């Protein structure tokens, strides 16, 4: 079965597929000169720090001459690298260390604040609607009428197995 009988259409389809396999031009523009070093989480050249996928598809920093010199030095024995150079190389590949991206931040405060704020807006809306928008309750909400309704339900023996009338003793005319 051929999805695209026309050759031109098929070519166009293949071209767009190839083009958007890496997320389209916008992602490629953002990647710029960064080295694509792996598959990452979904094959797109995007960077993020996460313990689920600790090795993203691209290096975090763009290459510059200083880093290139360091990379050259990295080809030799790593014992010749100073601790600072090792850190620089790490930051070249990654943005944050595990300790940094797993650090507990006080962000929960703003989350809680926004949630409570939204709740208070909801309460304010419901109060104002109660006072300003809705009229009086209908007369069927009067106590008299409600008890009359209850009496009628019992007289008609509605829901006699598990419902209201099952709680009423018809011999002694009172609640069980």
């Amino acid at each position, binding site marked *: 079965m051929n999805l695209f009988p026309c050759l031109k259409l098929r070519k166009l389809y293949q071209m767009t597929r190839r083009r958007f396999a890496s997320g389209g031009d916008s992602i490629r523009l953002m990647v710029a000169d960064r080295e694509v070093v792996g598959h990452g989480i979904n094959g797109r050249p995007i960077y993020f720090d996460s*313990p689920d996928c600790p090795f993203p598809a691209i290096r975090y920093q763009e290459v510059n001459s200083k880093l290139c010199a360091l990379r050259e030095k990295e080809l030799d024995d790593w014992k010749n690298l100073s601790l600072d150079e*090792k850190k620089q190389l790490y930051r070249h590949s990654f943005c944050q260390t595990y300790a940094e991206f797993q650090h507990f931040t006080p962000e929960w405060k703003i989350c809680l604040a926004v949630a409570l704020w939204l709740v208070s807006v909801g309460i304010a809306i419901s109060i104002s609607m109660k006072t300003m928008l809705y009229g009086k309750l209908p007369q069927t909400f009067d106590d008299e009428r409600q008890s009359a309704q209850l009496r009628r339900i019992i007289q008609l023996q509605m829901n006699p197995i598990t419902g209201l009338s099952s709680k009423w003793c018809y011999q002694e005319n009172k609640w069980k």
Partner: protein
Amino acid sequence: MLSITARNLASALRSSLVGTSSRVAAVRCLHGTEESAEEFDKRYEKYFSREGIDGWEIRKGMNDLLGMDLVPSPKIIEAGLRASRRVNDIALAIRWLEGCKDKCGDQKATLYPYLLEKITPTLQELGIPTIEELGYDKPELALKSVYDA
């Protein structure tokens, strides 16, 4: 006439049913072979120590391993470190160490010193610093807010 047809039909049905059930058994048999821990370790050790492995494959293997519900054994960790040495990527080695430490979860106090003790010779041989030497066991830099950039 009818009885013959019925008998034929019944036998055909039975044979088809038996056929299916035996096929199901065969499939289950294939899935049932469980890999032992040693075989698993050996498989990944072999994966990382393959000649001509590149950064993509190393990252794939490490991402997979760190996504599993296990702590990589010291041998796998060593193989991973040596693999990153072969592709000349020290950042990869440090990140791999960090990932393995993170996999210890709430057993960091007992498991991590054991792992470190086992892999220390390799670390010294390759010149890879431990996370503590780098100071990466605690947050080093704060991330600049995107609103200040």
